[in-house]
């Protein structure tokens, strides 16, 4: 009877396992094989050894895409963390309706579908004197800017977009974290005569470290892979100003028809994501 029992769990997981194998592990294997071939997705792939790896690593656009991705991911995350911690502290008053409303509203961009929020950003920043941001600038006496069409401002515009989109999420996580801090710590700080600012610096921030790290790593992982937003915002930017790694892979595979080389870049993306996830898991385990 125990033998028969053992089939049933397998039946429970079999469908999921089948789907994953067919559509995730098997394609990954195809991708690894493809990285050693010259392939345009139509004709059969031709084996060419390590040539793709050499070409990709020496491709200045690839290196540039790594830099761009690192720049925008780190910048937006760091600003995001600081901003959201600030908003969380500001709105932690329990009975303020205004504070609750604030948290409710800043969460909206996060909930919106990526393509739609990128569409909204386009609407705010379009390169014309009449776009809302440009109108604001002209009130301040600065001339209007090209934003997503200006090669110097395109990446900052995207960074701003990510902050706007994600601040709601991190704020809420921080708020949950703040709620979890036992009152003892606050009482102890008050007894010691600490000012609000000191309390924040020496008590709250250290206690929130695990949450901060959680937000950092989660945002890193999703930031590295982001494609939709950037595609709808700039599609790689004026020239190649906002070509992130994902856009580079997309362009190499479907723009230039070099699926083999795109596979190399994709594998590198995978390794980076893998490394980040392992760090995250290891960190959670140690908690």
């Amino acid at each position: 009877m125990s033998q028969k029992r053992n089939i049933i769990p397998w039946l429970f997981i079999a469908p999921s396992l089948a789907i994953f194998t067919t559509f995730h592990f098997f394609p990954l294997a195809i991708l690894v094989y493809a990285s050693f071939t010259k392939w345009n997705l139509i004709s059969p792939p031709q084996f060419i050894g390590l040539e793709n790896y050499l070409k990709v690593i020496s491709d200045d656009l690839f290196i540039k895409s790594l830099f761009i991705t690192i720049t925008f991911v780190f910048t937006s995350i760091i600003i995001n963390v600081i901003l959201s911690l600030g908003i969380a502290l500001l709105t932690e008053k329990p009975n303020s309706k205004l504070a609750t409303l604030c948290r409710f509203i800043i969460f909206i961009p996060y909930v919106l579908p990526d393509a739609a929020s990128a569409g909204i950003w386009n609407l705010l920043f379009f390169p014309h004197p009449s776009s809302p941001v440009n109108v604001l600038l002209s009130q301040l006496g600065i001339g209007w800017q090209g934003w997503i069409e200006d090669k110097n401002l395109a990446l900052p515009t995207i960074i701003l977009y990510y902050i706007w989109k994600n601040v709601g999420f991190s704020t809420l996580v921080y708020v949950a974290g703040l709620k979890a801090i036992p009152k003892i710590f606050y009482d102890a700080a008050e007894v010691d005569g600490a000012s609000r600012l000191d309390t924040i610096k020496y008590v709250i921030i250290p206690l929130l470290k695990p949450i901060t790290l959680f937000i950092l790593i989660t945002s890193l992982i999703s930031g590295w892979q982001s494609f939709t937003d950037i595609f709808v915002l700039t599609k790689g930017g004026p020239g190649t100003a906002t070509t992130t790694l994902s856009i580079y892979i997309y362009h190499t595979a479907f723009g230039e028809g070099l699926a083999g080389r795109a596979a190399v870049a994709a594998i590198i993306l995978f390794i980076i994501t893998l490394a980040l996830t392992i760090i995250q898991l290891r960190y959670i385990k140690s908690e």
Partner: protein
Amino acid sequence: MNKENKIKNLIGNLIILLIIIIFMFPLIFLILSSFKPYREIVSIPPTIIPKEFTLNNFIEIQKKIDLIRMTINTFIVASLITVSTLFLGTLAGYAFAKLQFKGKEKIFVLMMSKLMIPTMVLVIPWTFMMMRIGLIDSLLAIILPNLSGAWTIFFMRQYISQLPNELFDSARIDGAGEFTIFLRIILPLIKPALATATIINFLWGWNEFLWPLLVLTSKENFLLSIGVAFIKYSGGVMTEGTVNYAMLAAFSLIYSLPILLAYLLLARQFVQSIVLSGLKR
């Protein structure tokens, strides 16, 4: 002391108000711009409230790319993905949580590793596979890879493992089969988790962009997500680099509306679910 606090409070509240205004503005501007004609959006001086209220943007979009059909398609895709993932994911989650079998831990880790594979990495082989099967340009091609979800399995496992074992043991002693236990005992108990997983998976399905962009070719199969890119890069009114921002606004509004409404009605559920999920799409 009290006065200082009062001033601090006031400043604090003002800043909060400022933040609210900054974050509400894009939404309000979006809604208002959807009803303006294009020339009003690029007029100097620009307007916030439409001087010329028009439904033309929506009508044009419907005529050009069949907005209604796109919405239906997106709904179907998101719903099917949600239903299937919930069913298969919960099954697997339960198995990992409460059933014993050889290699359970190893298989679980294997399945979780799927979470680390970015979609961008997979779309290249997927394109090739779908070409071979001949499923290019069908909604089925989008649903298939998403029939089950590692996150759902992980989440369900976590939730179900918190349920006390006594519930099942007594049922098993009574001779109930595993599937019956699953249906009659587990499912009713995990309703909150099911709700969370529904929201998360539906959001993910609604958001699908890259893969549909690559695999769909007929207008009648397009999804709302691709529609945004369509309008951004299509010119709309004129070509050679001009974007019809009024249409873009109208379209983004339609695309966001169901999600916004759900959020307004179920805010707490949304927030809990998303914060619990800890992951973005």
